[in-house]
C-alpha cells in the first residue's frame, strides 16, 4: 500500500512535466511560423526566383515584395514589384486576400487576376510572405517521421477560414528546432498542388528565418521554383499603400 502511494505521488509529479514537454500541434505550427517570415510587421524583402524546367535553361528573376500583416489574419496585403529580368521589369501585383490586380508597364490599365493565375512560377505570394498557418489552419499532430534526414513532427493542417489559400496541408516540422522542413499542399478536391521544401535558414537582423524555399511540381519531375530571400527590411508601409491605384505609382 505504501509503495502504491509513493508510485502515485511520483506519477503526480512526473506526468505533468512529461506532458508539458510534448508540444501541441498548435504550438508546433506557431513556432514554425516564426521561421517562415516576420509575423507581425510591415516589411520589404527582395526575392530571387530560379525557375527550373526539365531539359530547359533555368530562368532567374528578382522581385521586391512589400508586405503588411494585419491583426489575426496573417498576410493580408502584399505588393510584388518585378525588378528583373528586363522583360518583366515594371510589372507589379497587388494581392489582398484572394483579390489580385496586375499592372503592366506603359499602360494605366489594372487587370484583375484570379487566385489560380500563376505569375511567379509555382510560388504564390503567400509562400514568399510566410503566411501564418497558425491563424488560417487548424492543426492535428499525426505522428513523427524522418524526412530530409531530419526527425520531424508530422502534422495535418485544415483550412479554417475562406482566406486560406489551400484546403489541406501535410506539414513536417523538425523536432529539434521547430524549423519547417517540408509541406504538401492540397486543393478541396484532394488534388496535390505542390510541395515545398525549406532548404536553408539565415539570420536577418538577429532573427533566423527562411532563406531558400524550394517549390516542386508533384506531377512534372524536374519542375521547380527556388525562392532565395535576400533580406527582410522593416518598413513603414501604411494600409492605404495597398490599393490597386497605387500599382501605377510604385
Amino acid at each position: 500500500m505504501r509503495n502504491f502511494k509513493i508510485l502515485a505521488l511520483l506519477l503526480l509529479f512526473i506526468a505533468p512535466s512529461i506532458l508539458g514537454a510534448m508540444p501541441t500541434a498548435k504550438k508546433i505550427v506557431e513556432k514554425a511560423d516564426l521561421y517562415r517570415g516576420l509575423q507581425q510587421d510591415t516589411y520589404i524583402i527582395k526575392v530571387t526566383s530560379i525557375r527550373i524546367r526539365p531539359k530547359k535553361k533555368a530562368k532567374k528573376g528578382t522581385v521586391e515584395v512589400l508586405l503588411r500583416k494585419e491583426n489575426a489574419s496573417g498576410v493580408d496585403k502584399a505588393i510584388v514589384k518585378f525588378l528583373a529580368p528586363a522583360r518583366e521589369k515594371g510589372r507589379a501585383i497587388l494581392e489582398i486576400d484572394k483579390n489580385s490586380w496586375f499592372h503592366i508597364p506603359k499602360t494605366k490599365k489594372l487587370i484583375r487576376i484570379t487566385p489560380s493565375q500563376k505569375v511567379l512560377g509555382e510560388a504564390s505570394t503567400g509562400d514568399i510572405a510566410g503566411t501564418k498557418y497558425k491563424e488560417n489552419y487548424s492543426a492535428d499532430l499525426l505522428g513523427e517521421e524522418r524526412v530530409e534526414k531530419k526527425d520531424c513532427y508530422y502534422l495535418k493542417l485544415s483550412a479554417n477560414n475562406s482566406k486560406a489559400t489551400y484546403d489541406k496541408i501535410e506539414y513536417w516540422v523538425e523536432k529539434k528546432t521547430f524549423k519547417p522542413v517540408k509541406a504538401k499542399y492540397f486543393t478541396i478536391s484532394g488534388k496535390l498542388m505542390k510541395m515545398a521544401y525549406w532548404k536553408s535558414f539565415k539570420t536577418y537582423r538577429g532573427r533566423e528565418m527562411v532563406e531558400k524555399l524550394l517549390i516542386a511540381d508533384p506531377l512534372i519531375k524536374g519542375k521547380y521554383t527556388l525562392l532565395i530571400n535576400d533580406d527582410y527590411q522593416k518598413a513603414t508601409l501604411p494600409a492605404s499603400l495597398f490599393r490597386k491605384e497605387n500599382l501605377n505609382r510604385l
Partner: protein
Amino acid sequence: MLLKKLVGIFFTVIWISSSFLLAQDSVDEMEFPTELLEALKDSSTNGSDSSNDSEASKSFESLWERIELATDLQGALNSVRKDTPLNPNNALISYGHSSIKARIDLILNPKLTGQLTLRTRSIITYAHEWLSTGANESFDRYFMEGYLQWINNGRTIVLDAGKQKLDWGVSSGWTPVNLLIPLPQVNNRYNEDLENEGLGMIHMEYSNTVFTLNGVIAQLKTAEDDSGNLRQGAFKWAAKVDPFEMGWVHHEAKSTAPVNGIYFSGLLTDLLEVHGEWTRTTDRNRKMITKVFDGYTDGSGYIPTYYTLEDDDRDKNFDKVVIGGKYTFSNDSSLTLEYYYTGHGYSESEWDEIKNGIKEANTSDAWKNDNFNASEGNRYSGYLYSINELLRDTRNKKNYDLRKNYLFAHFYSSESDDLWEWTYVLKLNLDDSSQTHSSILNKSWSDHLNTELTAIFYCGAKHSEYGLSPYQNIVSLSAKLLF
C-alpha cells in the same frame, strides 16, 4: 491474341501508373538538377547576419529601377482592299501597303523628394511607309505623359499636375466608364497603332478604409475648338463591398451633356472573375446620317441621293453597357468574354441609310464627277471621306464602334516554359456579323530581346462595318530590345 493484348494493356497501365506515382513520391529523395544544386549551395554563410548592404549600391538600383527603356523595330505588310466602295480603286485615300517603323519608348520616374515624383513617358518614332502613290517618311516625338505627383506620408492623398493618362475602366474590349474625352487622334500614320497622348490635368485622389474618391479637371480639345483649356471634369467614387469592387463615375464637359456611370468587378470563384460597366448620357457621340435630297434625273442625267453627317440633337438617353467575365483554366490559360451594347451606335435603318449613301456616291462614279463639285470639293467624295473617318475612329479609339451589339473574346495561352505566349482576340459585330480576328505570337529570346508576330484580319460582307475596312489584313513582325 485478345489475352496477349489485355496483358499488354495491363502492364502498360502498371508502368504508366508507377511512373506517375514515382514522380510524386520520389521528390522526398529527389536528385536535383545541377543548376539547382549550385543555387542551393551558393549560399551566403548560413546563420550569419546579412543586414549590412551597401547603401550606395541600393541607391543606384533604385534609380535604375525607375527607368524603363524599350526600342522597337517593326516591319508590316498590309493587304489593302481594292474593291472597297469607300475608296474606289484606292483613288480617294492612299493607304500604305508596307512599312518599317522604329520606336524608342522611355519611361523616367525620378523621385524628387520623399513625397514628390516626376513621372514622364516619351516616344520617338521613325516611319518609312510605302503607299500606292509613293513613299512617305516621318520622324516624330510624342510626350505621352509628364506630370508631378505628390503623395502624403499616410498615402491617403495624391495630387497630380501635368500631362497624364487615366484609365478608369474594369473591362477589356470596351471601357465606357473611362469618361474623359481624349485628345483628337494625331494625324500621323504611325500613331494609328499608338495610343493618344495624355491630357493636361489636375487630378486628386483621397482614400480611406471605406472608399476612394477621385476628382479631375482636364483640358478639352475638339475638332471644332483646339484651345485645349481645362474645360472637362470628372469624378469617381469607388468602394469595396466583398466580394465586389464597385464605383460611380460622373463627367461634365463644355458643350456636352453630363454622363453618369457605374461599374463593378469581383471574383465569383477562384477561377471566375466577372465585371460590368454602364454609362448614360443624353448626347450622342456619333454623327447622324441626314438625307439632303433624293436622287433625281435632270437634263444632265441622274443626280444621286445625297447624305451628310450632322450632330444628333435628339434629347434622349444613350446608354453603353459592358458585361463580361474571365475564366482561368487549370493550365493557366485564360478566356475573357464580353458583351457590349452601345445606344450611340447606328441602328439597322440608320446603317441602311449609310450604305445607301455609299452606293449612291458610287453611282456613275459620282464621287469624281466635277459636275457635283461644291465649294469644298465633290460632295459625294466628301461623304465617302466622312465615312472613312468614322471607320478610322473605330480602329483607333475605344468605345467608338459603329453598330449597337458586339461580342469580344480574348484568349491568352499563358507563358510557356520556352517563353512563348499566344493571344487571340475576336471582335464580332452582332448586327452585321462582320469580325476582326487578331493573333499575337510573342517570344522572349532572352531577358532583353523579345519578338512579336501579329496578324489582324478584317472579315465581313462588302457593306458591313469590318468589311468596309481599307485593310483586308495586316501582318507585322516586331523586335523589341528591353533595358
